[in-house]
């Protein structure tokens, strides 16, 4: 009976793992493909040879890791087993895939007119699009995301502190309307927003886009920050006030340091949003000196896709990595945000 139930349990978990691996493959494979093409494509064709070969190395390696973790009796055995697997995998990878790896697809980082270079490789001389320097787009993206983050954090902290600590007529109404704004789909405002920016002369300027994005992030950020401020004990503030600090001093010196995690969380979140933003910049920005990384990526895809997959995927890796790093680094804070925040 006990043996049978253990057997059932094991069968169940094998089935679960099998299911999860099967449904996750359609996601893992394309990302993996992107990386392998970026570092290996030579002729510009989207070859899958390197993908399948590196899969051949990685899949047994992952299974071996898993087996060592399951079978090892103690920590030392586990480390030994993992080190051995890693070594074997590294050698196999070096032999099977190593010779194909190169960095030539990252030509767009040093050569602004890479589209012509890429085209001349396949014998086409004309018709290449004039791309701005990638670092220009990179700087624009940094500027939009950075400025947006600074403004959102400042404005949201001030407003959230006031809403959390002060009683004033209209406070309840304001909180309620904030709640509505927070859930309100801003994408529906894209037509009037376009017209408004046109009429006040901010269309096709980075400043206009930053203002719009700031306003759209605000309700959410204020909400999150209010949650964090609510969690700061009153005693801290009270003792600062009895020591003679004014309310503003107490806010700056005593309360603000307490919500460091909240500030970090909304900073990262806002920054990522600014970095990824596509639809508003696509609609509001026209000149190619105003391009952000998302527009750069879009037009590279549009123009070079049929010609050279290697360069397109190299741009993709260049664009993807910063946001993945931010997500992973901020995971802890983002989790806190969803727990301490409003989504409960």
């Amino acid at each position, binding site marked *: 009976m006990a043996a049978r139930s253990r057997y059932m349990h094991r069968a169940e*978990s094998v089935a679960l793992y099998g299911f*999860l691996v099967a449904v*996750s493959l*359609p*996601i893992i*494979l*394309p*990302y993996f*493909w992107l990386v392998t093409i970026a570092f290996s494509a030579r002729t510009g064709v989207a070859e*899958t040879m390197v993908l399948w070969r590196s899969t051949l190395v990685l899949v047994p390696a992952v299974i071996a890791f898993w087996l060592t973790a399951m079978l090892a009796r103690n920590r030392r055995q586990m480390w030994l087993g993992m080190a051995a697997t890693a070594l074997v995998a590294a050698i196999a990878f070096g032999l099977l895939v190593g010779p194909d790896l190169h960095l030539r697809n990252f030509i767009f980082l040093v050569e602004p007119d890479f589209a012509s270079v890429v085209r001349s490789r396949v014998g086409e001389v004309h018709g290449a699009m004039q791309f701005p320097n990638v670092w220009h787009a990179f700087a624009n993206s940094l500027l939009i995301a950075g400025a947006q983050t600074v403004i959102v954090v400042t*404005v*949201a902290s*001030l*407003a959230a502190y*006031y*809403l*959390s600590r*002060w009683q*004033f007529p209209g*406070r*309840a109404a304001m909180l*309620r309307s904030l*709640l*509505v*704004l*927070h*859930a309100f*789909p801003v994408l*529906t*405002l*894209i*037509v009037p*927003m*376009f017209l*408004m920016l*046109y009429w006040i002369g901010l269309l096709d300027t980075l400043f206009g886009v930053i*203002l719009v994005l*700031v*306003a759209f992030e605000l309700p959410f950020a204020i909400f999150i920050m209010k949650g964090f401020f609510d969690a700061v004990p*009153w005693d801290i503030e009270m003792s600062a006030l009895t020591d003679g600090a*004014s*309310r*503003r001093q107490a806010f700056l010196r005593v309360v603000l340091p307490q919500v460091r995690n909240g500030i970090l969380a909304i900073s990262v979140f806002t920054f990522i949003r600014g*970095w*990824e933003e*596509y*639809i508003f910049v696509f609609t509001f920005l026209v000149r190619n000196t105003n391009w952000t*990384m*998302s527009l750069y*990526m879009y037009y590279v*895809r549009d123009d070079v*896709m049929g010609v050279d997959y290697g360069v*397109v995927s190299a741009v993709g890796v260049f*664009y*993807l990595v910063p*946001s993945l790093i931010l*997500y992973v680094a901020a995971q802890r804070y983002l989790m806190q945000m*969803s*727990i301490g925040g*409003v989504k409960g």
Partner: protein
Amino acid sequence: MAATNELTIERRGHTRSAARRRANFVIFLGPAIVLTVLFFVIPVLIDIAVSFTDLSRSLRITKFTTEQYQRIFQGDRRLPQVIGLTFIYVFGTLAIFNVSFGLVLALATTSINKAAGGFFRGVWLLPRMSPSVLYILLWLWAINPSEVGLLNQVLMHAFGLSKPLDLMTAAPIALIIIANGFIGASLGMIIFTAAIRGIPEHLFHAARVDGAGTLAQIRFITLPALRWPISFVTIYQTLSLLVSFEYILLLTKGGPFYDTTVYALYVYRRAFESGQYGYGAALALFLIVIGVAVALLGWRFFDMERLLQRPRIEVL
């Protein structure tokens, strides 16, 4: 004399405190209020105003008219098809991915080893974490209609398909549902996972002692505990699917022809492709109204008591 002095001091103190109160209000809340009014309230008003004009590509208003609304209710023959498609798209994505598959993922990843569960959840978060342009780029590669496409390689080599498949023309609606669903599933997954973690462990122990199998445990313990999270995800995802068109615009541009143009994308195409801003504004107004209505529903989901709790000290 002394009494009046005291009174004036008190009064002066009072006015000064009121002034400081006002100053604090302006400093702390001012910027937020200005930005919100400027970019939420005014655009809505502009939208209403513009929907009663004939604003088009020249961006000049020549007359005020209700013809945009006449067109919506009588003239536009494409609109019924667009609305029908929107229904299929929203409910298809919601039912298959955002709720059901999100729930399946949450259940599966919480019943295996914790680290492994975290890994699979991380994989499913990948589409949400990658920028939209890049995510769609991967889709365009994967479904490339020639034999270099990833899907076609798998289909042709592993399943013996003789001709490469062009998903974009063969099943465009299924394509946009799947592409959006891969992203949508992760939100449900996270929220449901948190809710499942919150169920007291002893309930499962008790059920097991009573002889309940895995399915019975899910049916009688997990699902009842997930009632609120499920309705939350359903309502919010309905709204966001209804208004968002970014991935569809990038993936199919609403085509072939108008086959994948959902309502929100129809608004966008009318305004920015055909330059009919007035008509676009009128169409957008319906989405705005739905947005406000669903956002108002959100009141039910929040702990209003906690949100509105009074601040405890009244010091300046």
